[in-house]
């Protein structure tokens, strides 16, 4: 159970809750239910939650599948820094957002789902102690580790949202693996005396001679 990445599931649950809130809100406002203004709130809250949760965070280990077109939202979500990075804040935010929608029938399901998502985000922080490194100033016992979560610490440990960034593509160095042939004619000095020892076994014989520059530099024709 220790290796479960709860944050990933919390993200899926929150996204689904956002969609349910939007649907419930549309039903309430379109149907002109009593207190339909809660429905309008629910649509706004649902859209906000969806936009916040759409960019998937990077997994702790392993590769993460990006959602389609998430890089635009990743840039926006990244701007808010610790507000969106920290799962505590996300949990509390979701909990607060879900409360007003609970007063209307059509959105009560959205409330419950978002509250559960908030709970799962909190659960990320309550992972078993073996999963996370022991924090300084805290005795390594399971009882203490549970309480440590409440104590504010300078360094935020545990899970947090990290954006998936595309790795900068390295331009392949053309001809980087091409080994230049020996620049001096035979007889050549043995491998130790030469600056660049050749890989072929045959090229290791011969007495030393001075290095000679080739009149025409040798390059690879294939571009």
């Amino acid at each position: 159970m220790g290796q479960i990445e709860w944050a990933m599931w919390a993200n899926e649950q929150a996204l689904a809750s956002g969609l349910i809130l939007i649907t419930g809100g549309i039903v309430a406002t379109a149907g002109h239910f009593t207190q339909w203004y809660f429905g309008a709130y629910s649509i706004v809250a649902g859209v906000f939650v969806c936009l916040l949760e759409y960019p998937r965070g990077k997994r702790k280990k392993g590769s993460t599948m990006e959602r389609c077109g998430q890089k635009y939202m990743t840039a926006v979500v990244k701007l808010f820094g610790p507000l969106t990075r920290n799962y505590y804040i996300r949990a509390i935010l979701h909990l607060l957002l879900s409360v007003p929608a609970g007063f209307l029938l059509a959105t009560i399901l959205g409330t419950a789902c978002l509250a559960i998502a908030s709970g799962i985000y909190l659960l990320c922080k309550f992972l078993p102690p073996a999963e996370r490194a022991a924090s300084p100033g805290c005795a390594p016992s399971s009882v203490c580790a549970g309480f440590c979560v409440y104590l504010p610490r300078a360094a935020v440990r545990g899970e947090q949202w990290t954006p998936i960034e595309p790795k900068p593509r390295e331009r392949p160095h053309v001809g980087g693996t091409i080994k230049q042939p020996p620049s001096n004619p035979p007889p050549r000095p043995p491998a130790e005396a030469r600056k660049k020892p050749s890989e072929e076994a045959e090229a290791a014989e011969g007495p030393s001679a001075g290095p000679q520059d080739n009149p025409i530099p040798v390059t690879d024709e294939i571009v």
Partner: protein
Amino acid sequence: MMGCWILNEGLSVILVLSWLGVNFYLFIDTFCWYEKEESFHYTRVILGSTLAWARASALCLNFNCMLILIPISRNLISFIRGTSICCRGPWRRQLDKNLKFHKLVAYGIAVNAAIHVVAHFFNLERYHWSQSEEAEGLLAALSKLGNTPNESYLNPVRTFPANTATELLRTIAGVTGLVISLALVLILTSSTEFIRQVSYELFWYIHHVFIVFFLSLAIHGTGRIVRGQTQDSLSLHNVTFCSDHYAEWQTAAQCPVPQFSGKEPSAWKWVLGPVVLYACERIIRFWRSQQEVVITKVISHPSGVLELHMKKRGFKMAPGQYILMQCPAISSLEWHPFTLTSAPQEDFFSVHIRAAGDWTAALLEAFGAGGQALQEPWSLPRLAVDGPFGAALTDVFHYPVSVCIAAGIGVTPFAALLKSIWYKCSETQTPLKLSKVYFYWICRDARAFEWFADLLLSLETRMSEQGKTHFLSYHIFLTGWDENQAVHIALHWDENTDVITGLKQKTFYGRPNWNNEFRQIAYNHPSSSIGVFFCGPKALSKTLQRMCRFYSSADPRGVHFYYNKESF
């Protein structure tokens, strides 16, 4: 090979369309009934057509909830596969698609649940509104029914509370409905492909919320909140006439006050059978897990692969099948699938396990694969085995020529197959229909599968001992190498045996040119039917299917490639 595709895929398409057809039929039939039925005339006055939407989707939900548990009763499916001799060919292949069907039915449940929930939101809102002071006329009269002692109520919302949400939570149907919807959402969000890849355990554990789902579903209708006029009342009270004369109901004898009763809960009738079936399935799984499994040999391969030889009473397998293994010392709830790598002719069954996650890593450590001192047999952890499951690769023997292609980890079912082929070859009594096997193995790094290379080496020697060197022709393609390896290979190019695998047949580098391969095979066997079997990534599967279609000749007496798409 359009005909081949139609035969292979046509049955699946027909089954899906039938399921869809039944859903539509049930939906439309129920919808029309509720729209026209007299006993619900007054209910429709308050609710409109959302009553019909809710009831129609409820019936579809009942149907789909009945179906959903059946495809995942794998022992039942193995039973059907084992006993049905009539279920050959395309029907047997449908049994392999059980998980796809399970997902399809789950989508059906999600869609119908959405319709049902939205329709009932409208219903509850309308019931609520018809109790307010603004409601007039027939609506108000109907809502007031039930206030005096002799009357039965129609409107389940009896007073005009401030909030429909609290009203929902006061009814059994409301509370169980919320619980069911929550359970469904939890199951759906934890079953996405991403979550299954990231953390299969999470998916598996949360999926057990289905128990809450089914329990709540059974109690969902017990509140009898869907109310229609009783038959007795209908015979006395003419709806078409009396609905205009609602003011006289209390007084006139022509229109006595209509009486209403709630609809009997029916969901439990639909789901009881499958729930009992699934309960039996879980009991069978538990019982099989208690059966003793004797570990006869533990081999730790240098590439981090653990080979386990086991014996179990009454265990019969076919090549290509898989078993589910559980190790209570590591986790009492997790069962993991492993393809069997031994031949049915051997007196043990074996699996090869590689560390690919925390369960397998823990298993390797428990069996001392980390290179520690030898383990004593009594100190090895106990294992439970369920199975074998899955489609067998025995179709290989039905063709005169078979082409087996394995990519990467897909090589494991072919280990069992090749061993089985060798055993069948050695049996000189029964001549085999199969006369030639081409085996293609494409992998990035042969070191991970050096146990398989060892198997090929031993097969090679045994075949040459029997004088059957031309029976099996295998080609290994390494698609990943570094410069050191390349130089090493270049230096030893002219030697007899391959420098990487030690086999007589040389390893090729890079991906195979399938056009050349298929052309060569078609040329070698001009008038045979050739079976092609593949295990590996989907992209390559599509390529091979294309090759099969392209190189099969139009002449019925010519060469024909039959692509067998198995799901391993």
